[in-house]
């Protein structure tokens, strides 16, 4: 299998391709629009986004590993139930582990950790990818998707925390107390709405728009390149 990463690349995606596609081209939140519940519910601060991303990464990679390993053993009619059992097991492990080793983070996110089970991103990757591919590509896919998901959560969490609380990662970015006037001018009044649910929708909406614009722009560019060289267009 290792020899397949030669020149015939376009047909046979390499592990690297499987890995990076989740970060940008098929980003689970911004492009596939999956896993929005955690993407909005917990992301009112940067650190929450990081912890949620890490927890989801553990679950997604673990579940993909097992689903891929067992893909020939799991009977088709009950595969979804078995995926859920595998996912729920990993989620519960994360829950216990956080409570044991990161009690502060667990106090903050406890309610949302259990909900990772129903994150459609995780089940989606099992059904669409891990159950049809070998362990290597499945792990690469899971790692890439997790990174993309974490990246999205961190972006949303960062934006909401800066605008909603005037801090980033708990560190004030507009001076010690942003709502207090500094030298006679109120530097920054935190937009409380940004840490509330509507702030999640607003942030996500703006980011989705930006991503859709970038995607369209790059598709447009490709089309023009094709038109510029009709030779290559005919061949593909």
């Amino acid at each position: 299998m290792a020899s397949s990463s030669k020149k015939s690349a376009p047909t046979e995606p390499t592990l690297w391709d499987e890995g990076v596609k989740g970060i940008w081209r098929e980003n689970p939140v911004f492009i596939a629009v999956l896993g929005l519940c955690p993407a909005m519910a917990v992301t009112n601060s940067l650190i929450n986004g990081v912890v949620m991303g890490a927890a989801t990464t553990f679950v997604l990679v673990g579940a993909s590993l097992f689903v891929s390993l067992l893909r020939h053993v799991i009977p088709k009619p009950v595969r979804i139930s078995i995926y859920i059992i595998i996912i729920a097991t990993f989620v519960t492990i994360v829950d216990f582990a956080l409570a044991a080793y990161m009690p502060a983070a667990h106090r903050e996110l406890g309610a949302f950790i259990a909900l990772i089970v129903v994150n459609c991103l995780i089940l989606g990757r099992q059904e669409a990818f891990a159950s049809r591919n070998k362990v290597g590509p499945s792990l690469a896919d899971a790692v890439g998707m997790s990174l993309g998901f974490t990246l999205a959560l961190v972006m949303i969490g960062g934006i909401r925390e800066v605008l909603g609380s005037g801090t980033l990662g708990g560190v004030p970015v507009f001076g010690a107390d942003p709502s207090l006037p500094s030298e006679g001018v109120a530097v920054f009044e935190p937009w409380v709405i940004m840490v509330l649910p509507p702030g999640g929708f607003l942030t996500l909406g703006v980011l989705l728009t930006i991503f859709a614009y970038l995607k369209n722009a790059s598709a447009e560019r490709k089309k023009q390149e094709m038109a510029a060289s009709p030779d290559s267009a005919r061949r593909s």
Partner: protein
Amino acid sequence: MTAPASDEPSSARLVLSLGLAGLLSGLALVGVYLETKPLIEENQAAYLREKVFELLPGSVSIAAHVVRDGELVLFEGEPAALAGEDVVYAGLDADGQVIGNAIPAQGPGFQDTIRLIYGYDPTRRVVVGMRVLESKETPGLGDKIAKDPTFLANFAALAVEPQVLAVKAGEGTEPNHVDCITGATISSKAVVDIINGSIEQWLPVFNAEGGS
């Protein structure tokens, strides 16, 4: 029907697969649970102690008291045996004198049970502080009951008689008034209700103590 096709697995196989998956998952979880349980309990106990010291500044050690026949007695068993007991944690100074009492209490919040602990001074009959131990209130709104300094300041010297009252933000005038957090009225009121309920339960005990 006679020769089972490979893409139509038999019911027995389905049941077996699901059962096996559940069994293995259960075993894995039991292992992780046993592994993390002592740590989790340790964390909770440490957090509780931290909050007791916060509520009763000046105390150097903590003694757990439980009620036996209507009287407070020192609890001398394993801390794990306290589960399910009604406990009062007394903060002791270097000479072993009781500085104050911290009482854990719990009750329904907006989403799930709120567990909190409050400092109580039986002679002055005031609450001297409140800390939330565990809550799942709405992030950004209800969870302010644990963090909002203005809200927590309500409990610094809060009269409990006739009872604690939750009032609108900024309208607290009496010593037994608690200003609710704007946008988190239900969570704020839940905290007040929990404290009222707990005081009602403990007042007779403390009164008996004071009388003897």
